[in-house]
């Protein structure tokens, strides 16, 4: 039943796991854009910007993830329907579940990533930035050559944690009907009436995903800090 044959659900579950990977990764990327914008607004020293950034971060860290995902899914569909009615499209217009799900995971992840990036930026030695200015780099060049590589290096452990969170949060997208791992396990459980076997298989696949990607982040951290190790060791 869980095999790969004609009647097996093996392939469907693997496809679900890949969809989980894809939607979590998209969510993490959306979160990294939002997170770096918030970190920037907090670091800029602008009062209004910092207040907005703070409000965003504390709001999305204080709300249940499931509620945020429902809100993004229903909310964006209602918005799209309203816009559709304005331009003459009748009836309900749904947002694709993948887009809504990735946006939901990303909006939550961004609130947490902001702190990771802010901490990483503050860990850059001020002398490095001064040196960059002294040799005449303008802001964008300095951002690309000096800030981004170092922020990423310091941010890897924090990002690794948030990746695990995004991976687990992505299971909540199953409520929108996207056939990721959780949803596939649900469908399999319903149509074969073997919920225990299917949810256990799903659990095993989630554990595999988190375990394997965790090793990947460990390797990335090792590689990114190889220069630091040489300096200290």
């Amino acid at each position, binding site marked *: 039943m869980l095999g790969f044959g004609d009647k097996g659900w093996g392939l469907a579950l693997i496809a679900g796991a890949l969809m989980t990977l894809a939607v979590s990764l998209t969510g993490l990327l959306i979160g990294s854009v939002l997170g770096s914008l918030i970190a920037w607004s907090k670091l800029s020293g602008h009062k209004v910007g910092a207040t907005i950034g703070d409000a965003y971060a504390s*709001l999305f860290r*204080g*709300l*249940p*993830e*499931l*509620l945020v995902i*429902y*809100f993004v899914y*229903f*909310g964006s569909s*209602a918005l799209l329907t309203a816009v559709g009615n304005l331009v003459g499209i009748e009836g309900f217009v749904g947002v694709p579940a993948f887009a809504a799900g990735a946006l939901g995971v990303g909006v939550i992840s961004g609130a947490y990533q902001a702190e990771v990036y802010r901490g990483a930026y503050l860990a850059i030695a001020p002398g490095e930035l001064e040196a960059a200015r002294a040799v005449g780099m303008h802001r964008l060049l300095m951002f690309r050559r000096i800030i981004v590589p170092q922020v990423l290096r310091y941010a890897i452990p924090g990002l690794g944690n948030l990746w*695990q969170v995004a*991976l*687990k*949060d*992505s*299971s*909540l997208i*199953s*409520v929108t009907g996207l056939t990721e791992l*959780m949803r596939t*396990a*649900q469908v399999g*459980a319903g149509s074969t*009436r*073997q*919920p*225990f076997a299917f*949810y*256990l298989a*799903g*659990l095993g696949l*989630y*554990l595999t995903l*988190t*375990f394997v990607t965790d090793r990947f982040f460990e390797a990335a951290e090792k590689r990114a800090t190889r220069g630091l190790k040489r300096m200290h060791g």
Partner: protein
Amino acid sequence: MMSLDFIWLTFLRLIAALPVTIEVWFLSILFGGFVAACVTWMRVSGILPFSLFARLFIFIFRGSPLLIQLFIIYYGLPSIPFARHSFLWPFLREPFYCAVLSLALCTAGYTSEIFRGALAAVPRGQVEAARACGMSGFLLFRRIILPIAARQALPAYSTEVISMTKATALVSLITLWDVLSVALKIRNDTLITYTPLLIAGAIYYVFNYILARVFVWLEYVVSPHLRRRVY
């Protein structure tokens, strides 16, 4: 025009569901803390089978989504005859107990790591000094290790407690009438999308805000040595 009446009625219905959310939250933190203490003890016991079991427990409950754990317990367990005939069946039949059991086990996975980190942060010298004074066993644990470890654990533990409030929203998926599921029911019945979800969000947010304040106050109370001295 969205009437104030509707907002007020929605608010009353959602507040009426808050006790369910709080009950699940409180019981799962209570049992989760107890399980976590046991798992931490096994993890640091130095007895190989125990510490392997604790590692496996932590790996499973931290490495997989709460939702699938909840579904295994609520939908999965009743499908195996063994569970149906066990003495636990009267509990596993009720979505409320399934929710508490599943949330407690999940939070125990995270909390036991917090406890382990706090234990590791107790300075060796303090324990040595206590031993030199002749304390051992339970007295050493109660007077020296526990107070220092509890203080160390507080910031991380407060994060876990707050994330548990958010986790209770998942019980809406196993037919419990908590704040979120009532909000979704109102949305379903009235086709008004934003208002019920926004009010539910406000309730969760205020609850978490109060929790965060309480923990800030607790941290202040238990760390007099870090305060600026007032002469």
